[in-house]
């Protein structure tokens, strides 16, 4: 019994000294409500679907069976349990991996073209069609 207690104390001391980088030092303290139960499962899946698995070909961490994705899903779940918001969690992963990790790129910098270019092309296309139609109407038959 004494040995067991000593071992437990030693394990506790060792784990107390062990420290992994914490999201809080990058995105500040949790700004949301700690999640549990069904809400935790739903939100974990939603967020995992928004993060790219860095070792896969275009898969989200929600869909990937890789160990990397499992670890990332675990971290998402833990952060939600601690009360971090969606935005804080996405910012944390973006801080480490860059925008690459976001399956839906944010509207800023070069990636804003991803959103604006198709719209711009559509507007130009419509303008050309309208111009053409007007021209055709103005030509006497």
């Amino acid at each position, binding site marked *: 019994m004494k040995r067991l207690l000593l071992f437990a104390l030693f394990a506790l001391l*060792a784990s107390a000294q062990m*420290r992994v980088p914490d999201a809080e030092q990058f995105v500040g303290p949790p700004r949301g409500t700690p999640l549990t139960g069904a809400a935790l499962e739903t939100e974990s899946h939603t967020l995992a679907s928004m993060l790219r698995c860095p070792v896969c070909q275009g898969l989200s961490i929600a869909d990937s069976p890789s160990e990397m994705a499992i*670890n990332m899903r675990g971290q998402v779940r833990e952060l939600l349990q601690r009360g971090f918001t969606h935005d804080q969690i996405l910012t944390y992963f973006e801080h480490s991996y860059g925008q690459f990790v976001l399956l839906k790129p944010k509207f800023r910098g070069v990636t804003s073209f991803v959103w604006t270019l198709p719209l711009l092309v559509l507007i130009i296309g419509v303008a050309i069609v309208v111009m053409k139609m007007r021209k055709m109407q103005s030509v006497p038959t």
Partner: protein
Amino acid sequence: MSRTVLLFGGIITAALIAILYAALGNDPQHIDSPLVGVAAPNFALKQVGSAANVDLASFRGRPVVLNFWATWCRPCWEEHPLLTQAAQLSDGRVQFVGVVFQDDEKKIIQFLQQRGWAYPTLVDERGKTAIAYGVGGVPETFFIDKNGTIVAKFDGPMSSEALMTNVQKAMR
């Protein structure tokens, strides 16, 4: 076809060709780390073969070569002799640290005993440290200067030239 259509079509095609041409030389496996230029995320992880933890902050004051690797990773096998030799040659002026990623401690000890054990190797349980460093695959190596700032990152197994170049950046 009208001149307007030709003009807009030409502009769009030229822009697409320019983007594709610019991306041709890029390595699709290489993604710039947003951590270069910022403070290295701190950690204290358990050392392989010991109960002691090693704190990254304890190496402040000298450059650190932080190598993420695993025993199941073939390119890591190729890189290991270079890192071991460089750590021995640097004689403590540069601190080499290995962080083992998604691996089993018994296998790590066996690997290091067979292939050389020249610097602290730490276990990253559940990959939290690797995630904080944005590690996607192994090997990946971060070069940290004496003030604790990441100055460079290298993806894949390093050549001696790549190692030297990046160590020099960390020593500046």
